[in-house]
């Protein structure tokens, strides 16, 4: 460890740390655009200037290593002047089109300007004209005038995704980022470039112009798109979830996530969801309240098991639920004495891995499910279910939340249609379920942003997900459903925990939704 002094504060950092890392480690403020902890040092924005005692020249914090006893500051007048001018150089050719820019509100130019700028511009010359609204494929739109050429995106495609699509072409103030021939920037990780773009140059086609970011709340959670379990931040308002970004987690995903994982709003938001329970057959049926439906299913199952035997009922589980839910559901199966089958959605791809983050197992908690099945002592081979399904009275399915990862959904509905009844706990509303040929009960479940619990990722790392919003008020977690089915009542805790009060804006005036 090395000792140094930053703005008068004694700090200890690991050997080899750069000054900017020391600033970050102590939570001290330092302006920067090009430096990013997950990328190589470019040292080009020249904003992270610091004064080091004994050195007459200002140094950049990102490319200067801390040495024992260094006395560093970034709050002298000399530094403030340097940063103000550094910012001004960034702004002279920037279009300043904040009112129509999707980045407004989270733009680093705006943030730094409020801290270091607040002056009248002196630039009286014509700004450099560059290309705007450049189509970089299905995910990304580029505005080269807004770009401040920090090169983060280029370093990302060179160093992290290793796809090399981006470059900075031309030189001087005519430099422009882009792809050759405007080819699409469309790799499995491309939207990370939007996240790390400090300005509105790279914007996500999906998110741009949808919401002003200052109207969105965010909360950290874990992505349920695959077994990697990346830490993410979800951005939401009362209408639903608008986007997902990676949250820094050195143990799992570093600073990145895949583009696919950003698609969770597709199955979380209300318009794709099952809003209430439903009983019926071949599209004919009636809506029910979810809790009552679960209770009724529980009573029926007990009755069937008592009268016809436990081999008339089977439970089907998926790796989509939390450890707590798995335990409750599997325990119920155990109590009833029925068999449990693990539905593996894409067995041939389960062990695939792209070397960065994306895994073939598109379930967040296969590891936890297998562990729970072992502990509870349930689990029978899938082939057994396939051969015996037509003898079954009831198939009870803890179905997928992310149905996009379950391309075999229709096949399975067909398979379960051979039983007399199929009961689905499921988050999404699917026509194929309602159209099944046997009797169907659908009970809405909560998605990963509406419940608390833990997932265990591919290597068994336990990670907490948390309730950040409620989109379908009646939906149940599998734990709640299991309780109701076993005849217990749900205890409604009227006291919202303090953490929700602080982070969830519904808690102030819309308590009923929680």
């Amino acid at each position: 460890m090395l000792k140094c002094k930053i703005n008068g504060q004694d700090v200890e950092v690991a050997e080899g740390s750069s000054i900017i890392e020391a600033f970050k480690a102590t939570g001290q403020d330092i302006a920067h655009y090009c430096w990013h902890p997950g990328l190589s040092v470019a040292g080009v924005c020249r904003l992270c200037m610091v004064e080091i005692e004994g050195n007459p020249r200002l140094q950049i914090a990102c490319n200067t290593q801390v040495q024992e006893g260094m006395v560093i500051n970034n709050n002298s007048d000399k530094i403030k002047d340097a940063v103000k001018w550094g910012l001004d150089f960034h702004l002279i050719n920037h279009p300043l089109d904040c009112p129509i820019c999707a980045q407004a509100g989270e733009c680093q130019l705006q943030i730094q300007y409020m801290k270091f700028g607040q002056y009248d511009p002196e630039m009286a010359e014509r700004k450099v004209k560059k290309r705007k609204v450049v189509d970089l494929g299905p995910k990304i739109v580029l505005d080269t005038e807004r770009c401040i050429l920090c090169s983060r995106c280029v370093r990302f495609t060179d160093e992290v995704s290793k796809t090399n699509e981006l470059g900075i072409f031309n030189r001087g103030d005519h430099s422009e980022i882009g792809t050759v021939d405007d080819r699409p920037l469309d790799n499995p990780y491309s939207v990370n470039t939007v996240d790390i773009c400090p300005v509105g140059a790279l914007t996500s086609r999906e998110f741009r112009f949808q919401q002003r970011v200052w109207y969105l709340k965010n909360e950290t959670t874990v992505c349920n798109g695959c077994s990697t379990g990346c830490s993410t931040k979800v951005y939401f308002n009362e209408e639903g979830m608008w986007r997902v970004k990676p949250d820094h987690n050195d143990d799992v995903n570093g600073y990145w996530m895949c583009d696919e994982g950003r698609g969770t709003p597709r199955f979380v938001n209300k318009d794709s969801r099952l809003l209430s329970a439903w009983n019926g057959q071949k599209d004919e049926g009636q809506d029910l309240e979810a809790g009552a439906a679960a209770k009724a299913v529980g009573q029926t199952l007990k009755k069937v098991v008592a009268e016809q035997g436990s081999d008339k009922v089977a439970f089907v589980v998926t790796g989509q639920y939390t450890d707590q839910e798995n335990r409750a559901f599997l325990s119920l199966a155990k109590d009833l004495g029925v068999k449990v089958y693990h539905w593996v959605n894409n067995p041939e791809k389960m062990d695939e891995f792209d070397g960065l983050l994306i895994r073939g197992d598109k379930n967040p908690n296969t590891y936890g499910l297998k562990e729970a099945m072992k502990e509870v002592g349930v689990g029978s081979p899938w082939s057994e279910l396939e051969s015996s399904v037509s003898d079954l009275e009831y198939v009870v399915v803890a179905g997928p939340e992310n149905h996009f990862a379950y391309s075999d959904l229709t096949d399975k509905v067909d398979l379960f249609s051979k039983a007399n009844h199929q009961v689905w706990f499921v988050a999404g509303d699917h026509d194929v379920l309602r159209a099944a040929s046997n009797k169907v009960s659908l009970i809405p479940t909560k998605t990963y942003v509406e419940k608390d619990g833990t997932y265990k990722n591919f290597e068994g790392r336990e990670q907490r997900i948390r309730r950040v919003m409620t989109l379908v008020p009646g939906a149940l977690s599998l734990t709640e459903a299991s309780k109701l089915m076993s005849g217990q009542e749900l205890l409604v805790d009227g006291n919202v925990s303090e953490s929700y009060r602080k982070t969830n804006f519904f808690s102030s005036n819309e308590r009923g939704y929680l």
Partner: protein
Amino acid sequence: MFQLSPAGIDFVKTELNRYETKRSAILPCLYKVQEENGGWVSPEAVNHLADVMDIPAAHINEVLYFYTMYNKKPVGRLHVQVCATISCAMNGARELAKHICDKYQVKEGEISDDGMVTVTKVECLGSCGTAPMMQIGNAYYENLTKESAIEVIEDLKKKSTNQ
């Protein structure tokens, strides 16, 4: 579609093995492409070169757009580059460039109607002691006057047409 000649492909292959890193071959290979593509490097030529060299097109494009000796758009058969930096500027280079433009009725950077002449003002060519000067192709023409410059160009035009 632009394609390198067999000799061009051989050149690229040799260059790829000539330096400590494959990427070093980009600069010489772009010269080759420019030579075979009639004096400039088109976007499709970049893509072709990327395929032949097995190097990301963006890396090649970055190099192409960084260096001024690669032409990013077509030029006339005689690319007249008049140095207009300090010593040349003091010795009438800008007037000379204007004179040549007027003579061939062409705007700076554009191609004359007969496809023969493009005139550009360029930065220091390291011929400051013999200002004003111009470069046409690989050759330097120094200590120019308006008259001698036109003479040189006319001479080259003749040679170029005869070929």
